[in-house]
């Protein structure tokens, strides 16, 4: 057991997978010699060499398209896209090929691959470096989309994703890379994909979120507790598949819900969560489900970003609204 940050837990998972399975390889821009722009692949190039830790040309479609070919031919590639905002040149490969091959070949060919992408804002980064567009991938048939929020989950979910017989988009919350630490078992273990987790149990309202926003969720829960409101906090961990049962069970208990994400509001994944809650538990609701989200705008740069990325205060205010009714 070692105390690891979320970034280190991912390094550990990669190391474990590379060590266990010859078919695993890592490919991406700057993942090799320099260990990745976030140092997530630190040390792996030295340990596994340039044939398995592949520094790729600056070409995202090339990275995903060739990784796809490798996966079809029996490898287990882990492709890194340097930032989610640079995944769009590869979008066609993901939608038109990665997510389709099993279906269009009726299981004859498959693409067991992982696409890792650091995502999200809150650190005052440059343009295009704060994207959180997971809902477009959630709307892409044939790929799973998961988002760990703890070091333990990060390692276990990444190992599970690498083992998954289908493509998995693995989103890494930049803001949590180094801000959370915990003890992590050595060696391999798996965290199943597709199951949400109740991070904090509560009775009065359900706060549903994932990724970096779990940190704001925790803060909100603490503030609410001081105000005498008992909030239940759910970390979805996976948006495809979406664990509607865990969410509905909670909302049936609390009768109130707030969904939080930093993605743009319109057609963000929060809308799906709300739609499914009301489909299953409309008559348990005492108040409209609230969404606390980023806005339909380009993520502002450093000086104004705080107007965009949801905060604990905004979550608390939204909870307040659900308590009015």
């Amino acid at each position, binding site marked *: 057991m070692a105390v690891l940050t979320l970034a280190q837990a991912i390094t550990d998972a990669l190391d474990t997978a590379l060590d266990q399975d010859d078919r695993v*390889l890592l490919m991406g821009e700057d993942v090799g010699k320099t260990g990745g722009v976030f140092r997530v692949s630190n040390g792996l190039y030295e340990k596994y060499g340039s*044939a398995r830790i592949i520094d*790729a*040309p600056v*070409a995202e*479609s*090339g990275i995903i*398209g*060739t*990784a*796809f*070919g*490798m*996966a*079809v*031919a*029996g*490898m287990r590639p882990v492709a890194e896209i340097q930032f989610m905002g640079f995944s769009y*040149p590869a979008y*066609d*490969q993901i939608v*038109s*090929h990665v997510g389709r*091959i*099993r*279906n*269009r*070949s*009726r*299981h*004859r*060919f*498959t693409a067991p691959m992982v696409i890792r992408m650091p995502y999200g804002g809150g650190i005052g980064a440059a343009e295009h470096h704060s994207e959180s567009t997971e809902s477009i991938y959630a709307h892409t*048939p*044939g790929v*799973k989309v998961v988002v760990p929020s703890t070091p333990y989950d990060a390692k276990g979910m990444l190992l599970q994703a690498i083992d998954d*017989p*289908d493509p998995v988009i693995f989103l890494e919350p930049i803001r949590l890379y180094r801000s959370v630490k915990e003890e992590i078992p050595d060696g391999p273990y798996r965290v199943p994909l*597709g199951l949400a987790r109740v991070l904090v149990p509560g009775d009065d309202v359900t706060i549903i979120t994932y990724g970096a926003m779990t940190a704001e969720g925790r803060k909100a829960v603490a503030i609410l507790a001081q105000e005498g409101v008992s909030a239940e906090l759910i970390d979805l961990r996976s948006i*495809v*598949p*979406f*664990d*509607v*049962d865990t969410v509905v069970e909670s909302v049936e208990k609390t009768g109130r819900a707030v969904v939080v994400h930093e993605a743009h509001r319109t057609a963000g994944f929060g809308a799906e969560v709300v739609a499914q809650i009301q489909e299953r538990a409309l008559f348990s609701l005492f108040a409209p489900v609230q969404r606390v989200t980023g806005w339909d705008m380009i993520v502002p740069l450093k000086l104004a970003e705080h107007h965009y990325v949801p905060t604990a205060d905004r979550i608390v205010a939204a909870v307040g609204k659900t308590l009015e009714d």
Partner: protein
Amino acid sequence: MLQILTPEGELVGDPPVDIPMTRRLYRAMVAARLYDRKATSIQKQGRLATYAPFEGQEAAQVGSAAVLSPDDWMVATYRDAAAMWMQGYPWELLLAGRTGHERGGSPPDHVNVLPPSITVGAHMLHAVGLAWAERMQGTDRIAITYFGDGATSEGDFHEAMNFAAVFRTGTVFLCQNNHYAISMGIEGQMATETIAQKAGAYGIPGVRVDGNDLFAIYRATSDAVERARRGNGPTLIEAVTYRLGPHTTSDDPTRYRLEEEVEQWRPRDPLERVRRYLETNQAWDEEWQKLIEGEEGAVVERAVQLAESLSAPDVDDLFDSMFAEPTSDLENQRRLLETEGG
């Protein structure tokens, strides 16, 4: 431009194969033409969705596919049925894709041919990854990818060529320059004289061959495959050919090209020159022609029957084909479809 057999059926270089093999390849071209014409005709009867004929391009496809090992990878397009069939993809599955049946994308287990790519360009990268993975796994399998002149304009062509060159993957890029991308003539597609010269932008060999010359295409592909198999990296082959028919059965080529142009290409037919060559070598006569047409025609007929006898995929097939195990989302949706009685 490499040419070995002239349109008149005369040798102007060393034939890469002997007479018996030439007869086999000629027979394959005859089969391909029969398939192509059959598919076109049943499409007109409404039995297929749009169909993309390849008449005129038989040599480019048959001659190149002929040099592959049975377990080499192939990643080709909607117009490359002949090449895919050469590599083991059954006619009936190629047809099933056009009747609108998903089984069409699922070749037999030993056939390493991906379902035909409908998107233009993207699939070339797959052939880079496939060849790369084979090297990683210590096999000597190579990957060939077929694409058109139009596909060279897509960014993915560039990325595929560059990755293949940088990582020296065993990939053969076989471009059938049939002079058109739907209505767009090659002169509007690019400002270069040739497609082969684009190889220079990647530091790999590029060769231009008479794509209607079975021998030239065989020779060029066999050199490229050899190079790839030995670990010496990729090659770009430009097979200069011509699509005699429409882009697809929904296309009206008179809107963008003159009949005279088509007529100029007819005498360069890829089958006829081989037939003449064989005849000169006492290896062709009318009787044999009838025999192979009969036999290959029957195979095609059977394929049509097989394709048309497939029963439509049912709801479970749809839901079960997205992932190894359907996700909870899909299971929920399947239940919904049942209650909606869709």
